[in-house]
């Protein structure tokens, strides 16, 4: 495992709207190209569950975006706690308590 990582995202250059995961075009149909950015993989856990031996969470990133993520291990996981992303052995981002 490595330390806290970042997530690929994109930003609408006109409105500043962030998209995680990234979108190529702004969502308003203008076909305005978004710029690629990285956002910190950290935020607050809103809800969590476990399915088939894997833990998942709903996370409000500090960047203001809500995403569904994989959580590290079986927990215990805590709603309202701060989580950050780390890369696992497969190079994928999973989230754990900060």
């Amino acid at each position, binding site marked *: 495992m490595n330390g806290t990582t970042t997530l690929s995202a994109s930003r609408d250059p006109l409105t500043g709207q962030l998209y995680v995961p990234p979108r190529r075009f702004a969502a308003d149909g203008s076909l305005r190209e978004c710029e690629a950015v990285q956002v910190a993989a950290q935020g607050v856990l809103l809800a*969590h569950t476990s*399915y088939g031996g894997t833990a998942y969470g709903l996370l409000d990133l500090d960047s203001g975006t809500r995403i569904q993520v994989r959580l590290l291990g079986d927990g215990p996981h805590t709603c309202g706690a701060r989580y950050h992303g780390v890369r696992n052995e497969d190079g994928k981002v999973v989230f754990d308590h900060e």
Partner: protein
Amino acid sequence: MNDVYVVGVGMTVFGAHGPGMGVALGVEAARAALADARTSFAGIEAVYAGSAHPLSPRGVLVARELGLTGVPVQHVSNASATGLAAVHEAATAIEAGRVDTALVIGLDSPETEMPTESVITSEGNLPPAVSFALWAGQRIGEHGTTLGHLAAVAAKNWNYARDNPFAARRAPHPVDADRILNSRIVADPLTAMMCTPWGEGAAAAVLCSGQALARFPEDRAVHLAASVTRSERYNPGEVLQGAIVGSAALTRDTARAALQQAEIGPDDVDVVQVHDAFAIEEILYYELLGFSEPGQTEELIEAGAFGPGSRKRFGLPEFSTDGGLIARGHPGAPTGLAQIWETVRRLRANDPDRIGMCHLLGSGATCIVQVLQRP
């Protein structure tokens, strides 16, 4: 624009039929719908066939079995919303005056085994149970919804399915909330009895224009008063909550538009078939479809609203009266036609129901809401 009527409905049992049964199931459902409309395939001017599973047979293979009459056969696919999408396309053709009669078939039965969940995850989604378990967790944290509320909704739908001969899950005895809560955990807090079993099957409907109504028995017709389909709309700053069924605004906006098109309000609706693949969904859709407000929904569930007698006791419609996706099953495309089947059954029956609503979402995300009205 021509009025559109549903004059025949039919369906097969939903459940595990096994590979290679797709065409036979489609033919069975179509024959049942045509018989219900007291007509034959020779009286059909267009076929709209829907399937959501990539390994289900194409509808033209069903139409070919029913007759080589040269009618146009269009294929429709829109994930879980496919069945209502096929109805929408057929209705659009009738409204435009291109045809006066159409057969709509929803068919999903893969030719080789491939679980529905595999299809959904192959599109980059999390397993559906995960997304909706997270919805449930969020709702519990923000609104005080309990496991008991989720179980009460699921038990209601299981008990409705006991009277549906086509339901995938027919419990021999009444189901209570404890039994729901004690079933296997799928994705905490969702138990197996709170989740759709998916399944296979087919369902169909015969649609006609107002001009063609005289060709069918008078007691068959139910008016399609509204059909609205939407995909997600961009709202600056909106937080999307997952890839499967989009934002809350999607259902809210589609339902409002459908009610407006039908020139009615939520108070006029007697019965609703809703996308209850997971119990948490039905609770959220009580609010998003306009029948309840946050802060009152849980109390209404505790009092027995949205179940048998809800209209009389609470002035609120009954929901998922054939067992819903939780108990009737959710094969994919047939689901929307099963909703039409149930709504037509309710509106034809000799009881006070006059207006029904059908609601489905398709992964991606799309939403379709249709309103049916007894003439």
